[in-house]
């Protein structure tokens, strides 16, 4: 039995700081996705919402919040959360319903209104919550982890701050003409190196911002799709894997790794396992990918992903970048959308937005940033507390 589901429609609310409710952003993205699919809201049988934890109760029940805003229609509802990987959770719910025959067509939707500056835990004293604990007792923010990984790349593989800055420069060019990107300005490596140091060795322009934004997908069965379109983009795989014990790389928001004592190490590390799970399910490999959308919370993390999604061996990411392989026009462009570098992070929308970009690229509709002849693409993302997120799409 085919495990394909069709991406019938995609839509976004542009990323930015708009000072409005996340609900309105979500409605706009949903309406665009429905229009793109040629459907009415009342045609949707399941709403799969991605939750936001920074917008009160409506954010925790995002599926219902969006359903109410679009007008109660009696559709089934689901709301899920997986930190930065929230969107993949929502996609997974919709896909499972479709593949199980429980519905034909679903709307996947995530939106956020983000605070300025560092993400911080929600209020109250909670020593049992690792996210609260790391802030309170050590002042460890998200960029702390980005800085640790970046320094590790420098010490292990000889990466330089110039390499990191070159990632930003590349992504800033990719996103220049993306109408949904927040930052559409070319950035030179020297701009990055001249910006303030936030988490050594990373500068302000190495680290992604926090944004408002929304992304939506209309997903449906292949039978349903055939009645509405020809040659739809297909989701071949969705990986939402957890780590395998012991996870020996320090991960947000933890203060410590799992212990290596007394246990065997897993075959592959957590980050390596995320896209691997999607490739296995799709029956494809990294060599089949025309491009990738990776979660560039920092420039250095983008380089880590090159290796972790199999675009090159360990330690070769800088070479891949310097050779132009990951620039549009190169062998396997990475973040043709401009990535988080140009968008900033709107947490529950982000994994969905990655799939929107896959669809636009695979349809040949990515104006100003098109990867010519794109046949297959992969997304990868990771949510704190152990949420893998990777989607493989093909034409």
């Amino acid at each position, binding site marked *: 039995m085919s495990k394909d589901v069709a991406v019938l429609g995609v839509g976004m609310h542009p990323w930015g700081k708009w000072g409005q409710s996340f609900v309105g952003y979500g409605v706009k993205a949903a309406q665009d996705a429905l229009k793109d699919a040629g459907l009415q809201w009342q045609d949707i049988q399941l709403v799969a919402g991605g939750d936001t934890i920074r917008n009160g109760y409506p954010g925790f029940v995002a599926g219902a919040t969006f359903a109410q805003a679009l007008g109660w229609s009696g559709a089934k509802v689901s709301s899920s959360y997986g930190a930065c990987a929230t969107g993949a959770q929502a996609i997974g719910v919709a896909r499972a319903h479709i593949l199980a025959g429980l519905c034909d067509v679903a709307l996947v939707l995530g939106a956020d209104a983000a605070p300025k*500056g*560092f993400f*911080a*835990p929600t209020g109250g*004293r909670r*020593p049992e919550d*690792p996210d*609260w*604990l*790391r*802030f*309170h*007792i*050590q*002042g*460890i*923010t998200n*960029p*702390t982890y*980005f*800085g*640790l*990984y*970046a*320094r*590790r790349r420098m*010490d292990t593989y000889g990466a330089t701050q110039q390499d990191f800055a070159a990632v930003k420069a590349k992504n800033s060019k990719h996103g220049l003409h993306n109408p949904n990107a927040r930052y559409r300005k070319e950035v030179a490596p020297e701009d990055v190196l001249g910006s*303030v*140091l*936030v*988490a*050594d*060795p*990373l500068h302000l322009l190495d680290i992604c911002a926090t944004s408002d934004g929304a992304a939506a997908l209309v997903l449906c069965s292949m039978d349903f799709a055939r009645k509405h379109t020809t040659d739809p983009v297909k989701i071949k795989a969705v990986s939402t894997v957890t780590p395998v*014990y*012991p996870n*020996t*790389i*320090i991960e947000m928001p933890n*203060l*410590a*790794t*799992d*212990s*290596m*004592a*007394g*246990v065997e190490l897993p075959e592959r590390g957590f980050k390596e396992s995320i896209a691997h799970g999607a490739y296995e399910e799709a029956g494809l490999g990294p060599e089949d990918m025309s491009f990738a959308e990776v979660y560039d919370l920092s420039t250095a993390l983008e380089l880590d992903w090159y290796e972790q999604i199999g675009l090159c061996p360990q330690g070769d990411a800088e070479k891949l970048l310097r050779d132009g392989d990951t620039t549009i026009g190169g062998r396997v462009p990475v973040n043709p959308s401009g990535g988080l570098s140009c968008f900033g992070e709107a947490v529950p929308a982000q994994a969905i937005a990655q799939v929107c970009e896959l669809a636009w690229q695979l349809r040949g509709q990515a104006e100003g940033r098109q990867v010519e002849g794109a046949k297959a693409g992969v997304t990868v993302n990771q949510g704190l507390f152990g949420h893998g997120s990777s989607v493989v799409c093909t034409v």
Partner: protein
Amino acid sequence: MSHKTNTPAVEGLFTMDLREPRLLGTRCRACGTYFFPAEKTFCRNPACDQTDLQEVPLSRTGKVWSYTSASYKPPPPFVAKEPFEPFAIAAVELEEEGLTILGQVADGIGVEALTTGMPVELVLRELYEDDEHVYFTWNWKPTRDGSDA
């Protein structure tokens, strides 16, 4: 002379011993794996179904896996000193326990003084205070003679 009581900022994470502090973890008596912060309910090794977890002080010394800095004041619930002084943060590998543990680097020592693989030891430093207590947390500090102490 302060009459305030020295107190851990969060109970149960380390011994309140200013000279030779130890982080407090647990170890599974069955499979030997360690946990920090202490896991007290069940062993998280999927190959082990035991619940016999023993509280153990962890090694006082380790080696730097990586390091970075906090150049901007972290938001609450961190209680920052005013004016804010940037600090370095290290991820430190404890060999025996097979754990990597994060912590601020002590005494304003910056990233320029750190290298991967450098030996460091655990110290306690004041995090903040109120009228009655001085609250402490752990820091990593390069060992004076560069040895494993």
